[in-house]
């Protein structure tokens, strides 16, 4: 085991400073800081439940080490809720019942938001492709695709 290393990560705009073991994942760091909306579904980078934004791009919180994020900006679902970034997606998810148990939902929302930033009017096929790194075992995905498609249409109308 290597000695703890002091790092500071700006989480949702606020500095979080702690001495961490080099092996500590970003997801575990965030959860220990109280950001429990970041969920751990597999811890080997497949399910996408731990998806967070690092310097504005989505990353797997379970495959990213906390020390890699020293000095970087990280945004979790709590931050994206607070600043309203995903408010329209959240509303559409509720309206379309695009969540059941809610465990995959924070990661799903951040992934969907990234798609909509990169692609103005994605097709259903493109939405399905893009969300395929995020597993949901409850919905069968259709309502999630419906919600994302609905927000894409509204965002496109606004822009």
């Amino acid at each position: 085991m290597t000695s703890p290393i002091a790092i500071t990560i700006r989480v949702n705009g606020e500095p979080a400073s702690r001495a961490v073991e080099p092996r500590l994942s970003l997801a575990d760091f965030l959860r220990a800081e109280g950001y429990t909306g970041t969920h751990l579904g597999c811890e080997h980078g497949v399910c996408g439940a731990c998806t967070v934004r690092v310097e504005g791009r989505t990353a797997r919180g379970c495959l990213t080490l906390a020390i890699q994020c020293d000095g970087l900006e990280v945004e979790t679902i709590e931050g994206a809720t607070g600043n309203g970034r995903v408010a329209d997606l959240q509303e559409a998810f509720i309206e379309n019942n695009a969540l059941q148990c809610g465990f995959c939902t924070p990661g799903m929302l951040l992934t969907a938001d990234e798609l909509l930033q990169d692609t103005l009017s994605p097709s259903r096929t493109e939405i399905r492709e893009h969300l395929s790194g995020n597993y949901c075992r409850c919905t069968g995905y259709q309502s999630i695709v419906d919600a994302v498609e609905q927000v894409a249409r509204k965002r496109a109308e606004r822009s």
Partner: protein
Amino acid sequence: MNEHLKPSVLDQPNSYVGKTVRRPNAKRLVQGQGTFVDDIELPRMVHLAFHRSSFAHAKIVSIDTQGALAMPGVVGVFTMDDIREVITPWVGVLDHLKGIKSAEQWPLANGKVFWQGEPVVAVAAVSRALAEDAAEQIFVEYEELTPVTDMSTALAPDTPVIHPELGDNLCFHRVVDSGDVDAAFADAAAVVEDTLHFNRHTGVAMEPRSIICDYRTAEGELTLYMSVQCPHMSKNIFAKHLGIDENKVRVICKDVGGSFGLKIHTYSDEMAAGAIAVVLGRPVKFIADRLESFVTDIHARDHLVKARAAFNSRGELLAIDMDDLTGVGPYSVYPRTSGIELNQVVNLTGGPYKHTSYRADGKVVFQNKNVMCQYRGVGHPIAVAVGEHLMDLGARKLAMDPVAVRRNSFIPDDAYPYTSPSGSIYERQSHHQCMDKLIEIMDYAGLRSEQARMRDRKTYRGIGFASLIEVTNPSPAFYGVGGARIASQDGCTIRLDPTGGITATTGVTEQGQGTETIIAQVAATAVGVPIEQVRVLTGDTEIVPYGGGTWASRGAGIGGEAALQAGKALKANILDLAAAILQAKPDQLDVRGGAVVDLATGNERMPLSELGRIAYFRGDTLPEGVQPELVATRHYTQRQFPFVFTNAAHACHLEVDVETGLVNLLNYWVVEDCGRVINPKLVAEQTRGGVVQGLGPALYEECLYSQEGQLLNGSLADYLVPMAAEMPDIVVDHIETPTGTSELGAKGVGEAGTAGAPAAVMNAINDALGPFGVTLTHMPFTPDKILKGLGKA
């Protein structure tokens, strides 16, 4: 007004029943503010990690824990001997499954290990990481024993007996022989037969199994924070085996990240956590990681079925004769047993049809693999796939359309209530209406002509059907009569708060399917308040009425009826009080929109907030002898039938690439009859999610074991679950045949999607491959199997 002329409370214009309303708990989940077990931190809490068996079958020679004990942060290291004083073993049998047997199961290996992944030693440390570090320093010397992995030879005389004290590897055997099967086959115009294999797969709930056991030594009280479907059952099990007064065990179940039947069973590692909490006297947390989940969460299915069917020349099903063999791992799982799935296969195969001769011989055998037990659909996917495959084979042999054979064989509409040859009683089903609607919404004729055109261009599309029945709203016949303390009744308590809103507590539980919403809709309607003023609490055994929780598609049908009756009772109490205050008669008043109104005119007489204010704070102003009772509790047990059956018709449309073996799902349709629909959106979403959990194992999901009993693909990278890109849009429509067993009339809907999808996919693939004379029956239908079937691999 005569009682029978009164409009039902459910049919009022302002009724929430039958409407899509939003889920009140969805907002916190989209904001990441759910409370899953791993989100809970308690003072002095320790974390568990396990040393698990690397062998499928072995004797433990020695265990060396010294290195682990010396590791930093370690609070304790526990073998079975270290917790034996505080916990008793369990045996997964039920009295009504005649002859079922199993061995005593312990929280940690008791001298031998019986499957790869079985917990052997537990380490408690101040963090999970440190517990895992220490677990790596545990050294167990094993003496390998011959693993029994192939279920087809499990009963052979030269196969070792896994538990010598049981005498053989047979867990359960059930035979049904009804009508005259031999005569039916002798007289048949067409006889078809085949062998089907149903792959072992698992549930993969996104939130792994999770538990915190908080034992307070001063009071001798145990609080369990669990991710479960049945808090009261867990309370009973932990109390019984830890020797704690059941009244001193509390189960708190907050958000549950998916369960699908996984989280209703007794797991060794969770029981070990309970025992260690008692020994240590401090909170113990165990969160299974994904790798542990694959080797310990119950697996499902694993059936080998040989079946044949007899038809007359009109395509009417005359008889089914089948043998089912299923491997359930080394133990029958406690307390629901691993015999129930086979029981359901035997009960339900050919369920929609009018044949009167039926023989089924089902055997459940032990093997050295992870345990198998009830998972969403319990036996239904096997029963439906076997029956529906036989229907297609019959149609093919008689050169009839598969839909015609089904229509000719359905139980006639005027034959209900109907007793099936396996002894199941069907109150009323709508197979003809469901099939008619299905054919219409899918444009069957259009798809068939498109299929013919595409075949000319060497594109192979297939259409597959599945008609099915689903067990819902179980009576005590499911578990109670077998001796398991799993409640089939459920209760609901509704309180009028001083604000005029209501608070409902219910024994049924929420795992995302929308139970709390359903209860809110029913309670709001029954009492007469806006749904925004309803608060629903579930999942805490110290708050909610005693109940069974959520399993066997019972939440809406059982819990909903209890809520309806509690709401009506509270409303009657409200009207009595209002009449006293307003000097009116109770039957001249009603409660609508959160106010007491004149029944005839609808004019508001008093808001409920005013009634609440008077009742709770100004009782001095009430007439003499008037004591407000603004809490009402009602319970409901369905006991008219053993189960209330639903029915559905599914169709799958897909394309098979005969060069690559890949299956492309194009469309999927479901016409579902779950009785009264309380919330159309939630019914549709349960159906869609259920279908996808049936499509997964039909096409991708399989727990692959080596001959030595090693799970070969136990990670989420190797075990394939459906992703968004592969799944089709699913059209869901309804027929509503309310059950007469309750006033609410709702049946269940949670499992029917999973029940039908494997059959529909299999039939569609075989329809697509019809031109090649290929029939595949070995799930999952992976590209290699399809190419092999086509002679290309």
